[in-house]
């Protein structure tokens, strides 16, 4: 019984790493067969060596630190503003009417399309990157908050009325818990978007960060460095998302399906 369960868990873990391993294998085979010039499709070993160098020199840590700091700022500002906007739009019909067209239109413009304008406005400093990350993080959270608050069933407010619940308790004990699940799924999307846009923005203009490291690698034809960046981006993005899912599952213990079940 318990042995079977252990086997099942092991099996699941094997299945989970199967696809990355397959890609690694294909990569190894292709580079060994010299299908592409080795300078273009660098071998996994070369990438590992570059990773060792970049780690030893502290360069990778520095770039990553810069990127994560930008992420933290941009994501916090963007999803925080999204939360406030979503709340205001859900609670005030006037506010919603006032900003809905602008909101819907801006939502449809890709973040990267703002880059030229933002560079002219803010230069290529930190502000520019933080604004662009914040913009990416804003919309998913704003939308899910709006839907979440609007979607609170009237039935629950009736229960609160029956027991003559005072307003602060209504907000803290009914309204907020009822909206948390949908807000969190929006925040999760915001985090992913913020990370993607951050790396993209750094690829275009930056003097530090994981994206800039990759861009410098490209310019100096160090594809091993570029590949280190690709792998690190994937791993960090994955880790951020998993971390968030765990947090979600912890906050939403009361749900039948833990939030991480579908992830």
């Amino acid at each position: 019984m318990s042995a079977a369960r252990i086997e099942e868990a092991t099996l699941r873990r094997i299945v989970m790493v199967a696809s990355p391993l397959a890609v690694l294998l294909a990569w190894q085979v292709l580079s060994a067969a010299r299908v592409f010039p080795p300078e273009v499709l660098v071998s996994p070993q070369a990438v590992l060596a570059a990773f060792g160098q970049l780690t030893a020199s502290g360069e990778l840590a520095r770039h990553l630190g810069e990127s994560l700091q930008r992420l933290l700022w941009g994501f916090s500002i963007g999803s925080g503003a999204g939360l406030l906007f979503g709340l205001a739009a859900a609670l005030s019909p006037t506010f919603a009417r006032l900003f809905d067209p602008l909101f819907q239109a801006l939502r449809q413009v890709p973040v990267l399309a703002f880059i030229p304008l933002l560079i002219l406005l803010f230069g290529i400093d930190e502000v520019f990157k933080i604004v662009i990350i914040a913009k990416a993080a804003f919309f998913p959270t704003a939308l899910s908050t709006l839907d979440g608050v609007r979607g609170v069933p009237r039935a629950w407010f009736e229960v609160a009325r029956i027991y003559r619940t005072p307003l602060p308790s209504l907000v803290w004990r009914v309204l907020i818990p009822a909206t948390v699940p949908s807000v969190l799924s929006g925040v999760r999307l915001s985090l992913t978007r913020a990370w993607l846009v951050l790396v993209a923005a750094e690829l275009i203009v930056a003097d530090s960060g994981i994206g800039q490291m990759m861009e410098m690698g490209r310019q100096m034809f160090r594809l091993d460095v570029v590949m280190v960046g690709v792998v690190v981006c994937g791993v960090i993005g994955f880790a951020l998302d998993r971390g968030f899912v765990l947090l979600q599952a912890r906050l939403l213990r009361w749900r039948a399906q833990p939030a991480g079940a579908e992830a």
Partner: protein
Amino acid sequence: MNIDSRAAVRTPEQPALRSGALQLKEVRKRFLFDQRELTVLTGLNLDVRPGEFLSIVGPSGCGKSTLLRLIASLDDDYEGHIALDGRRVAGTSLERGLVFQDHRLFPWMTLEQNVAFALIRRDMSAAARDRLVREHIALVGLSGFEQAYPHQLSGGMSQRAAIARALVNEPKVLLLDEPFGALDALTRVHLQTELQRIWMSQGSTMIMITHDVDEALYLGDRVAVMQAHPGRIAHIVDVDLPHPRDRAAPLLHRLKDDILAELTATDAPRGEAVVPLTRRRPG
């Protein structure tokens, strides 16, 4: 007289409450629907005696649920007079509890927290609160499940929990809006027996809406039969049997035939409504 027969069965230490008298006078409720006025309830007069169990049966759309919402003051927009112990009702009150058809427990609270939520307006020590909550969880037979979340409870258990939440304030009147309508037949029979026991031990006046004539007769001291279009009380049947009752009592069966005949004769062509009324299982 029914009250007296029940009082005799009640355990001696249980004082028969002499409050919880609900009076409805010429209550009328109209909705504006598509620019047209729709009369949902009209000329509704009802005297519910203190401590009584009153069942209300009627076809769909006869305004049964609307009536409960008016008594609970979830809806304040009506004509006429509704008073509890002589005082006109205004706004929701802890004196008037309500159990909905769907249990409406908050999924993010444990059973214990859900029941305690009802005491949010009550000024009492934490210890007194805990004791009340524990007692009422025990009353509905859910001791041991205090820390369970609603998704871990079955439909029947959730409805018990909802009853505990509604009773924890010891309301003078407990309103039950088809409380067992969404449950399977076996669970429903079981909960009917439980509700009878709870009512006998409590002293609250209870008014229960149901589609189920058997349920109405099994529990009710009286059964108000409603008609639709517009909603009104056609008449009130006395169920002159002491509690706890035997489902097989011949009187219950005779009254059931009468009520079904009445509901089907005036509301729909014979042969059509007989089946829905006995078999209708909403949800």
